[in-house]
């Protein structure tokens, strides 16, 4: 069963337009010492439902690529050129104009202009960012706000992007009666319902909108059957006042935009509380569901706690819960496990795999740890000094790395269970990106450097889903055996 599903998924992956397409991306940063060419000519695709890994050493531009995709490049940096297409939307529409506007003559950036432009950009992109794509940051301690409770932070995303969903949930619950829910509890106690079965059943009883809430209760592992049934029939009791309901219905009709009379009320703090209280409560409720989805123990307590009261693994779970709150199509995970211990890391990786299966989201997974990459990714891109040097399917990359840097990187990691006297190393250090080597940037450290390398190497498709940027493979396989 699962196999055929996966095969179908594979087919779908191959035929469909990629979810994310980055084309010729170039980002640079302006510092007093000069212009840092952080990313130069990076192109890759992430297909729907796949996990794409970016691997490389410190300062190779992995994180900046992710930030550029989210259009979160810090204000000292500019996207010079390139295209970022995300599920049919061009995120870099006016990039040429923006770039021109921010440039001063002496190779400097007009910071002020850049700042105001970023503001305008944010207004546009906020509809996508956090909703259709979201990010899990490396250090949860610094990316969670220390002065807000966990519950507030998780519900923030929901309140920003999913008010409609929250309103739907409240209205649907108000429409439910205990008699109708009884049908469902009866059916559920007789047999284990699958999600499709539940959906059919709910459509028959006219409680379609309750599907998420009921399915969540049914799929909980921490309570027994009786408690589940009780929780389902309790749904009918969580009702709101008729005035609030009237407001919510109007809110829904006007498509999330507050009607005029409410817009005035919304200016008065107390009235605002009355208006939005129900929605905020609902957001907290969804937050608790999300947190138990990421296997958080003791959810009700955690909602009221502050980030510093949690352990590293729990904080990372909060970050993940925030990232999946809106069921994004793309999750960007920037070193999500680097600050964690191996056992916790294993827990988090398992969780990400599971969530991917449930929501079928694509993941852009960034890590410096080849081991972690090999655990979770379908395809991998290797970055070096701002360039993408190789892209391949995971098994291909490990079986047959083509680029000398990839080969060196793999060789310098001690192999599990292999006892060698000395590790192979890559001589030298990562070049200064203010004045990177002309041509291939790996030229200065490459053991197989030759005269052609002072020209920029072309991108070569050398196999099915296997691309490399190296002169060694340019004219057939001529240089390979030298």
């Amino acid at each position, binding site marked *: 069963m699962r196999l055929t599903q996966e095969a179908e998924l594979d087919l779908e992956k191959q035929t469909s337009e990629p979810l994310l397409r980055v084309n010729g991306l170039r980002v640079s940063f302006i510092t007093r010492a000069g212009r840092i060419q952080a990313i130069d000519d990076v192109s890759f695709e992430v297909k729907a439902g796949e996990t794409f890994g970016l691997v490389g050493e410190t300062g190779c531009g992995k994180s900046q690529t992710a930030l550029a995709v989210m259009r979160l490049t810090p204000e000292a940096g500019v996207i010079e050129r390139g295209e970022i297409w995300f599920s049919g939307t061009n995120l870099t529409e006016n990039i040429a104009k923006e770039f021109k506007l921010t440039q001063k003559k002496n190779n400097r950036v007009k910071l002020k202009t850049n700042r105001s432009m970023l503001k305008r950009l944010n207004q546009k992109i906020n509809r996508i960012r956090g909703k259709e794509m979201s990010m899990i940051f490396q250090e949860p301690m610094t990316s969670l706000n220390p002065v807000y409770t966990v519950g507030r932070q998780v519900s923030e995303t929901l309140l920003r992007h999913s008010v409609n969903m929250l309103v739907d949930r409240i209205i649907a619950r108000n429409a439910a009666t205990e008699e109708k829910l009884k049908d469902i509890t009866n059916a559920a106690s007789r047999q284990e319902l699958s999600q499709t079965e539940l959906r059919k059943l709910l459509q028959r009883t006219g409680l379609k909108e309750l599907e998420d809430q009921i399915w969540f209760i049914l799929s909980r592992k921490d309570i027994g059957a*009786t408690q589940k049934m009780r929780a389902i029939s309790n749904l009918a009791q969580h009702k709101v006042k008729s005035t609030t309901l009237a407001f919510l219905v109007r809110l829904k009709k006007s498509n999330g935009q507050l009607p005029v009379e409410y817009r005035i009320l919304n200016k008065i703090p107390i009235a605002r509380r009355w208006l939005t209280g129900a929605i905020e409560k609902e957001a907290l409720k969804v937050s608790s569901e999300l947190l138990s989805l990421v296997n958080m123990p003791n959810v009700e307590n955690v909602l009221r706690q502050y980030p510093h009261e949690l352990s590293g693994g729990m904080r990372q779970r909060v970050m993940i819960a925030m990232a999946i709150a809106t069921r994004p199509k793309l999750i960007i995970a920037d070193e999500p496990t680097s600050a964690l211990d191996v056992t916790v890391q294993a827990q988090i990786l398992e969780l990400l795999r599971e969530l991917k299966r449930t929501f079928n989201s694509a993941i852009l997974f960034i890590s410096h740890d080849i081991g972690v990459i090999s655990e979770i990714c379908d395809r991998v891109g290797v970055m070096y000094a701002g360039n993408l040097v190789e892209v391949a399917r995971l098994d291909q990359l490990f079986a047959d790395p083509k680029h000398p840097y990839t080969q060196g990187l793999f060789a310098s990691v001690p192999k599990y269970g292999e006892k060698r006297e000395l590790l192979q190393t890559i001589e030298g250090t990562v070049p200064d990106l203010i004045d990177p080597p002309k041509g291939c940037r790996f030229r200065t450290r490459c053991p197989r450097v030759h005269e052609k390398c002072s020209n920029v190497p072309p991108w070569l498709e050398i196999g099915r889903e296997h691309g490399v940027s190296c002169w060694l493979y340019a004219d057939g396989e001529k240089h390979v055996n030298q």
Partner: protein
Amino acid sequence: MRNTLTSEEKLVQGTRLKAYFPAKTGKILAKALYVHAVDNVDFFIKKREVVGLVGESGCGKTTLGRLILRLLEPTAGALFFEADNDVVKRYLQLLDDMEINAPRGKSDPRLEEAATIEKEYSIFKYGRKEMKKYRRNTHIVFQDPNSSLDPRMLIKDIIAEPLKAHRYGSKAEIYERATSLLAACGLEAQYMNRFPHELSGGQRQRVAIARALAVSPKLVILDEPTSALDVSVQAQVLNLLKKLKKEFNLSLLFISHHLIVVRYMADRILVMYAGEVVEAGETEEVFKDPLHPYTTALLSAVPVPDAKTKRERIILQGEVPNLINPPTGCRFHPRCPQAFEVCGWSPREVKESFTFTLTSGRYPTLTSLPAIESAVEIDDLTFEVRLSGDVSDNNLAEIKKATEREILEGNRALKAVKEIQVSKSPAGSTITVKLYAFKMPRLTLVKGQHTVACHLYTEQKGQVPILNQGASPRQEKEAPST
């Protein structure tokens, strides 16, 4: 364990080391609380041996390293450096003896003898002069070279500082030695007159290593020496350490959470969990056949950079315990997938599982039970559950059956249940639950040089069928015979 401790050529030998740190309670008159960072740790390092110390963050690895350097004063325990084997043997004998027959009063001759041995040989009893001598024998390399090198000192002065402190020779001699050390660590003489910020991370770590070797110590403690470095640089540093170890005849204590690196470097490893050493043995033996369930889980969680072999993964549930109030018995038992009766279940843990079983609604036959009024811990091995109504004999049988079923389904805490009794009174029945007595696991020699602190290898398990009926539910792999 004892016979391995007394074999030849021990450089350092620690016995019953304890380091407790006072914890703030926030209350003035509250009982003083301590973080049990290192508890009852026995270990040794042989001459010219690399010992790897692994474990998760917060397990006491670094604290143990600092105890060896006497950067911290221990709460209890002794550490012998190059001490006569017979003396240490005698000391251990005395300790063992006193553990079996507790000393009578303060004037017990055994206590006095142990104290004299400590006074003469333990480094914790060294005076100023002796301590200064001892400091030439040990040195440390810290994790982060950015913060362990003084930014205002030149490289040459950083390396010369320990030489000056120990009056190595004239100024010219000192700088000559500094140059040769730097050369041994792979840096040219031109770096002598630079500041740390002018070097890259890998170069800085080389300087830290050169400084550690300046006074030709016999033991160097490496506290996560490569965690802050990139993989290609890490390989360079690891190779350097291997080379220096041979050149300088060093013993190394390699503290790291990165297991693949430890496997590459170490001859023998110690595995720590929550302040205790749970397993020690030859590196290859431990990696190939880990005995302690924690080691097994830890090793299985290591992400292996290999796309083909996908290993069976043991994902640990729960979090590392709070060391202010560590679990009784084996500290790993709350998370251990193989925990059984004697592992240290406290009434508090079992009480929770037991009341949950009664109320979860998973067992329809238990729904007729009267409501639970309270659950109280009576002593270390008993707790009582008071119910509002009567419990019939039939009910008792059902409770026993449900308990057994829970155990079969993996509710490990209930394995500790020895007896369930019911006493009736007019106010309602009381269920008294008695638990099996638990033991502290001690490091025991299981095979070859491989020691482990786990009851799976020392205690008979499942000798008493649960509640005197039904089959034993445990399916652990049997302990390999010695």
